[in-house]
C-alpha cells in the first residue's frame, strides 16, 4: 500500500538548534517526494522537491531509498520556521498523498 508516515505530530525546538522532521514512505515504484509548509492559517507552499536537490530557507531533504525516508533537516532553526510541515508522495499521475503533518514550534 502507498503510504506516507510522519511519526511526529509536534516538534518543539529552541531557536538555533537543529531540527529534523521525519518522513517515511511506502511505494512500489520510483518515488517522487515533496515537502510542503503551511504557516499559520495560510496556504500550503512547496518547500522542496526531491528531484531538485535544492536548499530552500536553509532546509534540505535527502531521499534514502534503502530506508524509504525523506527526512527534512535544518541546522539552525529560526522562529519564522514555526509552521506545519507536510511530506507528500506522488502515488499516481496527478495525485499527491500527504502525510499527517508535523507541527514545528520554535521557541526563543
Amino acid at each position, binding site marked *: 500500500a502507498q503510504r506516507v508516515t510522519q511519526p511526529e505530530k509536534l516538534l518543539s525546538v529552541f531557536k538555533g538548534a537543529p531540527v529534523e522532521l521525519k518522513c517515511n514512505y511506502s511505494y512500489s515504484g520510483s518515488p*517522487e517526494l*515533496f515537502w510542503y509548509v503551511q504557516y499559520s492559517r*495560510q496556504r500550503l507552499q512547496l518547500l522542496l*522537491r526531491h528531484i531538485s536537490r535544492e536548499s530552500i530557507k536553509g532546509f534540505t531533504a535527502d531521499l534514502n531509498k534503502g530506508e524509504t525516508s525523506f527526512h527534512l533537516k535544518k541546522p539552525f532553526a529560526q522562529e519564522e520556521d514555526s509552521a506545519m510541515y507536510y511530506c507528500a508522495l506522488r502515488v*499516481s499521475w496527478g*495525485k499527491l498523498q*500527504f502525510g*499527517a503533518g508535523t507541527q514545528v514550534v520554535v521557541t526563543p
Partner: protein
Amino acid sequence: DTAVSQTPKYLVTQMGNDKSIKCEQNLGHDTMYWYKQDSKKFLKIMFSYNNKELIINETVPNRFSPKSPDKAHLNLHINSLELGDSAVYFCASSPSDTNYGYTFGSGTRLTVV
C-alpha cells in the same frame, strides 16, 4: 497577482443548505485539484481535473460535485451540507509534469452549523 484564488475565504452556513466554492488559476496549468483539510489538519484529495476532464474522484459523497468550465477554473458545489463537511477546502493546480509540485490556493474555511 494571485496565482490560485479561491472564493469565498470563509463560509458559514446551516445544515441542509447548498453552497459553492470557486477556484481560478492564472498559471496556465493543465491540472486542478480539490483537497480537504480536516480539523486534525489531515489533507486528503477529493478531485482532480486535467484539461476540464475528471481524472481523480476519491471516495467523496456524491453531494460534492466539481465543475470545470475551462482549464483555469474548478468549482466545487456541495448539496445538503452536513456538520461533518466543516473543514478547510484547498484548491490547487499543477502543470502536466507534476514533478513541479502543486500551487495551492489560500483555502476556504467552511463551517456548517
